[in-house]
């Protein structure tokens, strides 16, 4: 008597990757950088991450319901969490709670779901959210803390929570006393005042190459990024070209005019460059598909970042550069199609 079997499609192997798996690896790779962040700048960032993740999942669930999509399946893909964490890593650790709310509203609702949800968005959601709050609330977004080693007062968890949820510092403290310009702001302000880069670097916020503390966080981001490369979650093309183009262009401008241009290493270790190179510009959905396309994409983000830092209206340009290159990605893809075998 013959036996009946249930059928199913090839390949007949258990799946060994998943979207959720990719996202979880990204988060795991961010962990060392986040730990370093807390070490240097206190627990504020942790609260920002929790806030952003909460809002992101809330908006995600809302939009999935509105779009009649399976909620558990898509909430379980961890993509909203990645968006939220990347956003949180870009905002000042003491930013009021509604920054995360507005950021995630624009990131998840507008940039992600109104474009068709996971995989369909043209722009990097985290960067859309960040740019919206950066442009809308420039003062709030400029309130950065100095590393705890040089801070006059290290905020406790209670003080941090109060600040974030009430929007103002607890009684004796004032923003003027505890906030400090970021290294990129310091250079910008110093150049605007007619000083040399070398003079600006005398400020205590600078470390060996980039900002004090920031350069170590960047190192740990890079460590996570290298792990992602090794795990083949991301390809080398974007990070190498992005950091490489900043290094080369930075070196050329430094050699041409050392007075108004920092050494290239400082560019690399400042702002969101390393984070962007490994975690933001490598977003597959909004980037290029082919390897040649990724080379161009990475170089484009690097060059635009440098141009914005030098001549733009904002101290860092990674977010803008990524969004601009997101726009160019479909065009780049069109002209960098690989040759089909045998053609």
């Amino acid at each position, binding site marked *: 008597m*013959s*036996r*009946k*079997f*249930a*059928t*199913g*499609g*090839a*390949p*007949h*192997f*258990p*799946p*060994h*990757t*998943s*979207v959720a*798996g*990719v996202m979880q690896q990204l988060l795991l790779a961010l962990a060392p950088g986040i730990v370093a962040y807390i070490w240097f700048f206190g627990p504020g960032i942790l609260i920002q991450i929790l806030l952003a993740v909460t809002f992101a999942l809330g908006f995600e669930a809302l939009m999935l319901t509105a779009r009649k999509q*399976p909620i558990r*399946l898509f909430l379980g*893909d961890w*993509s909203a969490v990645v968006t939220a964490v990347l956003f949180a890593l870009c905002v000042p650790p003491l930013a009021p709670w509604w920054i995360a709310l507005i950021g995630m509203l624009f990131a998840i609702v507008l940039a992600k779901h109104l474009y068709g*949800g*996971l*995989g*369909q968005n043209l722009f990097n959601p985290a960067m859309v959210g960040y740019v919206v709050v950066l442009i809308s609330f420039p003062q709030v977004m400029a309130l950065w803390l100095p590393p705890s080693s040089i801070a006059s007062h290290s905020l406790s968890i209670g003080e941090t929570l109060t600040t974030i949820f009430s929007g103002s510092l607890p009684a004796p403290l004032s923003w003027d006393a505890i906030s400090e310009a970021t290294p990129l702001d310091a250079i910008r302000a110093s150049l605007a005042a007619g000083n040399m880069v070398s003079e600006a670097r005398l400020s205590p916020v600078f470390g060996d190459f980039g900002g004090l503390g920031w350069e170590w966080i960047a190192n740990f981001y890079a460590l996570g990024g290298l792990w992602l490369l090794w795990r*083949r979650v991301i*390809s080398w093309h974007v990070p190498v070209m992005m950091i490489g183009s900043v290094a080369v262009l930075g070196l050329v401008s430094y050699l041409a005019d050392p007075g108004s241009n920092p050494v290239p290493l400082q560019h690399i270790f400042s702002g969101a460059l390393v984070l962007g190179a490994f975690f933001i510009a490598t977003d*597959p*959905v909004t*980037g290029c*598909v*082919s390897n040649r396309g990724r080379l161009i994409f990475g170089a484009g983000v690097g060059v635009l970042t440098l141009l914005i830092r030098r001549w733009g209206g904002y101290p860092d340009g990674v977010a803008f550069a990524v969004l601009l290159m997101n726009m160019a990605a479909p065009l780049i893809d069109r002209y960098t*199609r*690989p*040759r*089909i*075998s*045998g*053609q």
Partner: protein
Amino acid sequence: MRNERLEQARNAGQHLHHFHGGLRLRHNKKISCELPLEQVPLPPRFYVPLLQHSGQEAKATVVTGEKVLKGDRIGYLGEAGRGCIHAPTSGTVKALARRPISHPSGMNGLCVVIEPDGLDQWKELHPITDWRKADPSLLRQRIRESGIVGLGGAVFPTAVKVDEASERGIHTLILNGVECEPYISCDEMLMREQPDSIILGARILQRAVGADRTVIAIEDQMGAVSSALKESVTRSGASDIEIVKVATIYPEGGEKQLIQVLTGLEVPSGGRPSDLGLLCQNVATATAVARAIAEGKPLIERIVTVTGSGISRPRNLVARIGVPIENLVDQCGGYTKDAARLILGGAMMGYALGSDGNPVIKAANCVLVLTEFDIRTPQPEMPCIRCGECARVCPALLLPQQLHWQISNQQWDDAGEYGLTDCIECGCCDFVCPSHIPLVEWFRFGKAEISSIASERAQAGVARQKYEAREARLTREKAERRRRMEEKKHALRDDAQRKKKIAEAISRARSRQDEEK
């Protein structure tokens, strides 16, 4: 251009090259290689499908109640080299019935149902013993009549390839012993146990198509195979047969990939190996050719790997075409208690069968039975996140995610331009996709759509040509009629003038006569 490539392809196998992408998979081959080959005993009934490869179903050349001998032709398509099917044993045709035919689609087809008489008596055989001196066209004729198809799994009629190769002229015969799919070991066992028939087949094929040399490609992890083949080459005294070991990367056993590894050249898109002066055949196909020529026996059996964690004693069996798969499983000690999926072919490209009552067909290189643990419950399909892993592993250098997008949006022209028809359906993209999109299923669907659109267009083209031809004919006929009418008019006018002239002449003559009077 062709000549240049021909020359380069002559060095096939001397240096090894790479192909793009591919996967390193766990082989899982050892479990089925421990026991020697064994013949499957005669079942109570054979069910021989009349559809064994792409194209039309063959027509039965026997009727119910007819007695057949082993090797008698029972199906034929009338077309050269295609659809020749032979009786797997002697006995009686009990019926021509529509039954499952082990087709990827799961459809039923016409089967010749044969009840063996137990004598297993061959028809009268006509071996070509002097094949060394025989006319190559005679050898090709015999291949055409013997129902031989590519036994690597693609089941393309061998005669069609061989005829084309001899017409276009080739220099190198490549025998493909690179069995890159996990679990399958039928070619490895064949090469280990019957190397002489492979070498004989190689020499016959070489003569049939006029090739100068043969390269037999095997995997570097097939231990005893290389020495077995080399000893056999020495025994045969042939000096133009080489054994080449290649790295084990899936899908290296694909014809185009193997050629790229051996020659560094790509088979032109839409072209064939003969464009490079090459003919590629599976090693098992070579033994089928050897048997057809040297023994006069048509293709009625093949080696089948019966394996997987759902099989009690995995091994390789020599099974006749038409024997139900359950008989093979029984011979291997039956299923283990957690057997969950029955697959014909390998784990990458094989297809799941709904029942083990399906017969062994010429394409059946492997019967793979997996447990629930091997496959796991299918994961839900997610949207593409454009990670590009599929493009990284694609051996044809395609952009599977782009093709998927184009097919799901029915952009057929774009999909064609992006090389959908160059897809070899190896399943690498499917394997690595984190969103679990069944890409190959999409591509098969897309290819079918594109070819049906093309045939519709061709039909429309023919209709337009017919219409235009008719229009032209009508205009021509009209012009012809007008010309004829004009001619007639002229003729009439001429006639009237001539009559007038004659009348004038007559009247002149009369008047002269009158004057003379």
